[in-house]
């Protein structure tokens, strides 16, 4: 029961881990390249949560010094994840561009169909 209470208390971490594993599973298990990228995107998103959750303090405000407020959230992880989101967008768009080119060259975006043609090298 303790485990369940722990889990309920930290449901946000449970969600993060679920997204992480689900994304990674899609990347590995799916042969369709667009689905692979969707999985990759979910996987990356889970990491955004991993960084953001611990840095948000309930009731905390933006870290601007003001006598009315005493609790502040940590801004650094937000900045880091802003960078990570940009990297993620670049990765996904490059991946999609590659898929377009693969579709032009092979006429399919299913990995196993390409490999079955004996052209996967």
């Amino acid at each position, binding site marked *: 029961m303790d485990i369940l209470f722990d889990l309920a208390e930290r449901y946000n971490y449970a969600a993060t881990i679920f997204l992480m594993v689900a994304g*990674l599973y899609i990347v590995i298990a799916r042969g369709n390249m667009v689905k692979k990228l969707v999985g990759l995107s979910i996987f990356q998103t889970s990491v955004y949560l*991993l960084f953001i959750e611990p840095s948000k303090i309930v009731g905390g405000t933006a870290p601007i010094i003001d006598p009315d407020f005493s609790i502040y959230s940590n801004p650094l992880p937000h900045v880091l994840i802003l*960078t990570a989101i940009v*990297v993620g967008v670049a990765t996904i768009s490059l991946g999609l561009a590659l898929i377009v*080119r693969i579709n032009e060259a092979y006429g399919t975006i299913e990995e196993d169909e390409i490999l079955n043609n004996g052209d996967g*090298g």
Partner: protein
Amino acid sequence: MSSVLPHLPALQVVIPLFGAVIAAFLRRGALAFAVALAVTWLMPIIAAAMLWQVIETGPISYAMGGWEPPWGIEYRVDLLSAFVLLLVSGVAAAIMPFARQSVTLEIDESREAWFYCMYLLCLTGLLGITITGDAFNAFVFLEVSSLSSYVMIANGLDRRALLAAFQYLVMGTVGATFYVIGVGFLYLLTGSLNFVDIADRLANVGPEQFSAMVAALAFVSAGIGIKLALFPLHAWLPNAYAFAPSFATAFLAASATKVAVYLIIRLYYSVFGGAIDYAALPISEVIIVLSVAAMFIASAIAVFENNLKRMLAYSSVAQIGYVTLGIGLANQAGLTGGIAHLFNHAVMKGALFVALGCVFFRVGSCLLNDVTGLGRRMPITMAAFAIAGLGLIGTPGTVGFVSKWYLAQGALDSGSWLLVFAIVASSVISVVYVGRVVEIVWFREPTSKAVIEASDPPLSMLLPLIALTAAVVYFGIETSASAGLASRAAEMLTGALPTAELPAGAPE
């Protein structure tokens, strides 16, 4: 001049970054090449100046944008990073003249400028990973270099290059994301992203948080393991190297995996080294077993490979095994061998892939069947291939011998005769795959029309090849430069560990 000197660490990264932008705006292949050449030849000068400064006065710390570490991003150059910076920029500078003719042949003219733009971005990323002292900044540079290398690989002539680039993109992104998860754990544990600062704070982390620290170690190991093609995470590498344009293969093979190895050495020794007692965890064993598996299995696959570029790619996986073996041994001689092999393998593989680029330039194929008797038509190219191949085997008088000697000594110091035997036995396999090529190229009559009409490539391609081959022999005889520096870097790293001599639990 004196106003420039303190900013060398920033210039090392900023110059290629701006070079990439300029190359993209120039639009013309020849102009973009001129920019890339100028930038690439400037890099080793900066790196050498910093190495000299490090040897004279100790590590350089540069506060990016004037924000003091650990709050701002610190660029930190110590002996190891200066060594790797000089290695990456030096090999890039050596192979750069080769690019002009090779890229003109293999890349569509409208894309040439973009190709040089991507190359310079990749160089930016690789130098950035090496120079930065900030864990998250290293991730950003890792992605800069990775994304640009996917584009370079996708530009290969064969349509399979697209597939190879996509597979590399998926695996590379998973690897980089694992690394970020590890960095996230480290940040949660210590509240810092600066490598030196993390190391200080990790030493004070309580035992109840030990498992979080181990999780961080596991995530970064798996993540960077993909990037450095540690067996069995190497699946992306053979196709990526085989179908990329010749210049991209030569550049990536000589630099990309080396920088990933640098990052893992930095994390193992400088960050986690003070906090985790490696003897209590089976990390050495895992790395050593995987390294030995890479040395044998990847070499054995290379023996049966018909595409020479793929053969050398599998050989790269095997050679990375020697480097990680040195990391796993974790003693002075072993780590020296590993770091020296980083240098030596970059020089050898640079030479070998440039030679294959020359072969492709003249014959239009890198398949073993298509190069029969090529030694008589392209004597200089194939002689260079043979000499660099001897280095791969580890023949005395070449660089390969020096690093394998140190590795064997490291294995002896850790008390494992079995590992010494493994190093020698796996070298015998490389005799087979290098010897097979040499036999077909030198001791058979040319048959195909393309081979009979072939001749040595133009001087701009030949000179880089000769320079790198000369380096294979020179650093094999004059060892104080490469192995000497590697030894001092290893001394610095193992000296930072709590117990200088780790009992590296080698498999008996």
